[in-house]
């Protein structure tokens, strides 16, 4: 094996919005990489070796060194392959990007899951309210910009890919109204721009595959009840 050969591997599952973030970052940078599909029900030795702490995907391995946590991986990619920057060079803009990306993880992704995958109506209501509040903050933040990153997609857009692709499917399965053009016109417009961005389009998983998984998981809650 040539010593100057870059070894780049991504361990993931097709349906994961977190894994999708890493695909986007790698494709934006034009980095060649090997993708390994994991099974979360039967975790490989490789996954357990590379992410012993959380045992989750995505895991990114560069020249034998593993990194876990999608947003950390995206920042690492940005710092290692410096063309087509994902983060601004200005410290204040970087701080804002990190703040909003974390906000999306804490207040949008996890909370939407809680709102959908529950049989408890009160839980559903409470979490739906929280998601709507969070989307309102993002509506206020996007203003009339094309992307959160400006003219080009940045860290926040990558972090938020969950919103235009996963939320519409989740809300359909659970009969919820979360992201609508009526409630959040500016965010909705942004979501369409993001979904149609060339690199994002290439990075998204097959819709049918994800929808089927969501539907199965949702229905299984009611079966056991």
């Amino acid at each position, binding site marked *: 094996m040539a010593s100057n050969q870059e070894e780049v591997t991504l361990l993931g599952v097709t349906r994961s919005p977190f894994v999708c973030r890493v695909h986007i970052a790698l494709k934006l940078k034009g980095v060649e990489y090997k993708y390994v599909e994991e099974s979360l029900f039967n975790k490989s030795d490789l996954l357990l070796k590379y992410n012993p702490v959380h045992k989750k995907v995505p895991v990114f391995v*560069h020249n034998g060194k593993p990194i876990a946590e999608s947003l950390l991986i995206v920042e*690492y990619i940005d710092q290692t392959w410096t063309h087509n920057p994902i983060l601004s060079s200005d410290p204040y803009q970087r701080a804002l990007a990190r703040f909003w990306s974390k906000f999306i993880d804490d207040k949008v992704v996890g909370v939407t899951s809680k709102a959908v995958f529950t049989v408890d109506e009160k839980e559903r209501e409470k979490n739906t309210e929280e998601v709507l509040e969070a989307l309102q903050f993002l509506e206020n933040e996007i203003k009339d910009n094309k992307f*959160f990153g400006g003219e080009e997609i940045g860290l926040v857009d990558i972090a938020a890919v969950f919103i235009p692709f996963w939320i519409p499917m989740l809300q359909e399965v659970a009969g919820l109204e979360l992201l609508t053009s009526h409630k959040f016109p500016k965010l909705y417009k942004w979501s369409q721009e993001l979904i149609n961005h060339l690199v994002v389009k290439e990075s998204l998983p097959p819709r049918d595959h994800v929808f089927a998984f969501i539907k199965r998981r949702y229905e299984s809650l009611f079966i056991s009840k």
Partner: protein
Amino acid sequence: MSMVKVPLVTRMSMQFNKRTNSNPICMVKSSEVKLIGKWSSSYTIRVKIALNMKSLEYENIEETLKHKSDLLLHSNPVYARIPVLIHRDRPISESLVIVEYIDETWPTPPSILPSHPYDRALARFWATYIDDKWFPSMKCIFAFEAEEERKPYFEVLEEVLERMEDAFGKCSKGEPFFGGDTIGFIDIAFGSFLGWLSAVEQKFERKLLIEAKFPALVKWAERFAVDPAVKGLIPEADKLVELSKSIKWRAAIEKK
């Protein structure tokens, strides 16, 4: 992209002073760097350590437990929580984001984050791990009455200590701190909780940071506490135990 702009800072800080009767120093000039925080908050302590490392002067604005100031609500409308750093009238929230901002805005040594991207990723990983595991478990320990209910959270704290003992070996590479020969990102993220760790040990009469189990961490904690950037910032266990009596822990668990 912007957060809410804070109105004229001098006006705001004078208003704030009237409300809380604290911090008389700030009245005269509008300083470039302000920190809204609490003496007891590990997250606030992180930011203070970072500011100290860079030898930065700042105006300390102490929030009270009971009543959130207008300044805080304006500066952090999303979470309405401390710490918030205000630099040139622009607010930044979330302690680890603030610490990175400080490191990038004032890049003079000592560096807080490592220079190599892989080491940076590792540093961020461990800091995030602490955030996800440590304080949430601590809150539950204070909130729950029954020992049985607290047990699983004590187990989480033990697990964190085990992992950090192991991580110390890998990150420090024989040097005194996670960051090497000077304190760094992981030291700040974890060390800021040493006060509350002692408070838990005292209140529940149970030693967690045991030398036999965690020899590297025990020595590291001693060195960390006396580092010039840290000295005086870690609150005494007595004071935190006293404070813990008036905190609504159950409510604290509810919100993230």
